């Protein structure tokens, strides 16, 4: 980017003012979180990948800082520092720059986000519907006319797995891999395969603990390390190592994942349609109490959308949607503008109940929010970004 002309600056400022008026009018407190953030919180939460697309640097005292890559984490940090209690209800809105590096300059490295975050809302589904309604109202207030809304629900998938017969660690693996479609398919295929898993350099160790219980496995690991003169190093105890070896031994004797379970997972992931009729497809998958509860939440959310004056029939639901967004834990949505050059994502949001604990809240705090890409939105309406 090489700066904005005065006309571009005025157009963007006017648009953002209309967007923020919607959020403020709904009772969201307009805050200005810090642009400079401690890098640690982002790196610890998201791992190394974020460093490759963040501006991380050292301040003169040697502290590692970064330019915020989004405003959600800074808004949540603001909350933890200012709220009476971490789980006090709070509604924030914000508008300001965020910074992300993209290789080869595929996207601008400095861009604006206008958004809301609703923490510790008393009613989950009503707050989700409200956030969606506000996001839609905000892009409309900015002047966007043609757009599509996509919805997903990560909680339903977790609930589906819960009702399928498999070892708990397999469930954890599938959830962990869910947002990487390729790895997910491979993991699923491995669990479903009837043939012996391929041998690796640690297979002889697994052989050794095949018929041992937890205590016996740990004993074997300890004596093996002692025999080889290996100290338990690097933050992992003999107990950790033994527990994973025992899992591997159990995997060998476990029955492969039943074809019905594989079928259920694939059938679930194929579900798509308008948000109201998708409900009927989702209902056919019900087989566990957890799933029925998740479905009930979906139903309540649809009702809450109607109460907000939204038409769920106009929204597109896809079961796998949101799998590429590791951030979120439940309801997710995206608003795509029909721009001249094809669909352009202008807003996204959803539920992220783990974030506040991840960044230091001593108690769990539920959270739902959304962010609008302000330049994207302006570009979608034909203005320059």
């Amino acid at each position: 980017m090489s700066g904005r002309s005065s006309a571009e600056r005025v157009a963007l400022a006017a648009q953002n003012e209309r967007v923020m008026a919607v959020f403020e009018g709904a009772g969201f407190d307009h805050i200005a979180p810090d642009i400079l953030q401690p890098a640690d919180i982002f790196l610890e939460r998201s791992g190394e990948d974020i460093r490759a697309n963040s501006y991380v640097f050292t301040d003169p005292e040697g502290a590692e800082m970064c330019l915020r890559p989004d405003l959600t984490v800074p808004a949540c940090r603001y909350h933890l520092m200012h709220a009476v209690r971490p789980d006090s209800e709070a509604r924030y809105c914000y508008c300001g720059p965020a910074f992300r590096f993209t290789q080869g300059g595929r996207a601008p490295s400095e861009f604006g986000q206008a958004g809301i975050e609703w923490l510790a809302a008393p009613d989950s589904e009503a707050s989700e519907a409200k956030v969606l309604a506000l996001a839609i109202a905000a892009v409309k207030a900015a002047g966007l006319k043609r757009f599509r809304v996509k919805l997903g629900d990560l909680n339903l998938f977790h609930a589906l797995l819960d009702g399928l017969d498999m070892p708990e660690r397999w469930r954890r693996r599938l959830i962990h891999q869910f947002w990487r479609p390729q790895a997910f398919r491979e993991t699923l295929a491995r669990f479903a395969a009837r043939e012996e898993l391929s041998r690796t350099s640690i297979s002889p160790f697994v052989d050794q603990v095949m018929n041992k219980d937890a205590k016996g496995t740990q004993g074997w690991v300890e004596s093996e390390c002692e025999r080889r003169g290996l100290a338990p190093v690097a933050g992992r105890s003999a107990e950790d190592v033994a527990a994973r070896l025992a899992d591997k031994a159990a995997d060998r004797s476990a029955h492969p994942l039943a074809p019905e379970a594989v079928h259920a997972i694939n059938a679930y992931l194929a579900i798509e349609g308008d948000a109201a009729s998708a409900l009927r497809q989702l209902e056919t998958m019900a087989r566990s109490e957890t799933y029925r509860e998740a479905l009930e939440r979906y139903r309540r959310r649809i009702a809450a959308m109607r109460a907000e004056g939204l038409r769920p029939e106009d929204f597109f639901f896809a079961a796998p949607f949101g799998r590429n967004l590791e951030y979120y834990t439940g309801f997710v949505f995206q608003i795509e503008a029909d721009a001249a050059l094809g669909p352009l994502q202008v807003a996204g949001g959803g539920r992220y109940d783990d974030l506040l604990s991840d960044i230091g809240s001593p108690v769990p705090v539920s959270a739902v929010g959304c962010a609008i890409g302000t330049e994207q939105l302006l570009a979608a309406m034909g203005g320059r970004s």
Partner: protein
Amino acid sequence: MTALVLGIPSKGRLMEATEALLGKAGFALTRNGSDRLYRGRLGGIEDVDVAFLSASEIATSLKEGKIDLGVTGEDLLRETLRPEDDRVDVLERLSFGFANVVVAVPEAWLDVARMSDLDEVSESFYKRHGRRLRVATKYLNLTRRFFANKGVTGYRIVESLGATEGAPAAGTAEAIVDITTTGSTLTANRLKILDDGVILESQAVLALRTECEDDQRVAALRAGLSRALAKP
């Protein structure tokens, strides 16, 4: 005609092997009088200047277009250039300086054989300790690319500029990415290479700026080197 600039490692085994190979190919190296440490000429071919640089500077100088050709380790070249960067290309692999860039973990991790195990361990490590598993390395980019490709994301890099293999024992990292020729340093530090943990099988290469691909001097240099490499 503007002289082509060839970067050559300024010291160590890489320099000796490069000089020997060039000699064998009929391109004797002569060092310039006053600044013999930094500049030279290539014999047997017109208008090729030699710049003596450190191996890592050679990769950077190629990327920045400060030199036209250079001899360096493929590890440094791949670390410095993005995979899609087509401004620099490998012209010839030189059959010396063999070494592998590998992912290694403590031998005491009897439950870890593959990158997928490391992924699982990094997840439970985060849940247990509230901090990310650390990987010590000087290969920041190779590590990020390889780990991302293997779907491992829950880790952090600790930049290490020497004695990387000692990091796990010193408690500054849990795993490492390092270069190794025989693996004996790793073994001595009670580390093991993951089954699918070879990031790159590296050797010395002659790399060039693609814009001088069609230069006749490059063709002559390449032909000479190929003949020398084919000789027993």
